[in-house]
């Protein structure tokens, strides 16, 4: 019996398996042996603490770090980071990255024949506030072709990386857009068996957040693992 309050394991099928046949790269990059269940110790329930000095003013704006404005549809992406108990995850770092409006990443290994945008790098950072809220200003990324199978296209997506309060809560995910016709064809999206869990990766159009004559808006809430109550002293 461990006396440290434990972070709960996810429900069945709500996370992708390591091996997902349709996503070719997983075949040689997935463990073949079962993971060993570990009682969380101080090492797992603690984790790196990033202060607000990790983020500079404007780091959550992917559109204003260059000489001009990037090409593309300006969008505000915002939401809340909560844990499974519904509590806000406060003052926590979020890192984000994405392709440009043409579906091209500013990366030496991206050979996709679509234009780079001199005014778009595609990386951002922010901290959640005291209510767990976050916000990014960016442009809508384009679909991205990859070589997983014949005529493979990734749906438009933004990558998000979060630590939460503990090593146990570390999460990297991707946000998708509502109504994207590529979602049914995408192995990475479909590697998660539970449909409801998959659909939670799709942001919702956020009319209230739109900015007249400036930007459309999408809402994406992120949920990190919940922790059990502290066990009673024996």
């Amino acid at each position: 019996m461990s006396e440290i309050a434990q972070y709960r394991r996810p429900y069945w099928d709500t996370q992708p398996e390591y091996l997902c046949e349709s996503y070719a790269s997983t075949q040689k990059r997935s463990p073949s042996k079962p993971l060993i269940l570990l009682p969380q110790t101080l090492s797992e329930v603690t984790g790196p603490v990033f202060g607000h000095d990790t983020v500079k003013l404007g780091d959550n704006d992917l559109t204003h770090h260059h000489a001009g404005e990037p090409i593309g549809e300006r969008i505000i992406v915002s939401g809340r980071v909560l844990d499974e108990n519904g509590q806000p995850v406060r003052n926590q770092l979020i890192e984000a990255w994405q392709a440009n409006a043409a579906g091209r990443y500013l990366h030496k290994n991206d050979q996709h024949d679509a234009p780079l945008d001199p005014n778009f790098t595609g990386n951002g950072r922010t901290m959640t506030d005291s209510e767990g809220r976050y916000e990014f200003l960016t442009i809508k990324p384009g679909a991205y072709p990859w070589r997983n199978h014949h005529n493979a296209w990734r749906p438009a997506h933004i990558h998000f990386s979060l630590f939460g309060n503990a090593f146990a809560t570390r999460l990297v995910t991707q946000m998708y857009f509502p109504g994207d016709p590529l979602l049914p064809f995408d192995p990475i999206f479909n590697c998660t068996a539970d449909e409801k869990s998959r659909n939670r990766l799709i942001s919702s159009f956020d009319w209230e957040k739109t900015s007249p004559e400036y930007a459309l808006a999408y809402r994406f809430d992120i949920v990190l693992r919940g922790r059990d109550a502290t066990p009673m002293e024996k």
Partner: protein
Amino acid sequence: MSLQMTASQTVGPYLHIGLDGLNTDNLVGEGVTGERIVLQGRVFDGNGKIVPDGMIEIWQANAHGKYAHPDDTRELPVEAGFKGFGRISTDAEGGFRFTTIKPGRVPGPGGALQAPHIVVSVFARGLTKRLATRVYFADEASNADDPILKLVPAERRATLIAKRTGDGVYEWNVAIQGDSSGNDETVFFDV
């Protein structure tokens, strides 16, 4: 209220764009006590090929066995120059290298002390979720009594133990999947 955790998705091949800004391969700041060490190794896939597009994150206690985190409430010294977090992408040879200090011992299940260890997350294209593992140190007698190592089948424990190869240098490789060339699959934990 009962929400469900957001599904993990791979970092993909272009993780550098978003994540390099937080790279920290030297964890040792001003005035940090303890034995300085280098932890280095390479990451391999199930073909025995290197993984040049991965990322390793480490998290550890300071030399006193204290984590720089509010949930570690034990009265042990915190050192301003030691946060305990490292992150580095694997290089063209699949390699990674951290300069840090050997962590002190921290309590485990039931309060028994664990052997000195560093917890590790591995990310890469093709990994749908991060892989969580641990690194122990070959020259530590306390490994024999470690409550977590005891959960691992004896014949697999070596994959979690870094070998001392030189003055303060510890070598530890990650094999995401066992392969025919003799790389034993690293033990990964469901944390």
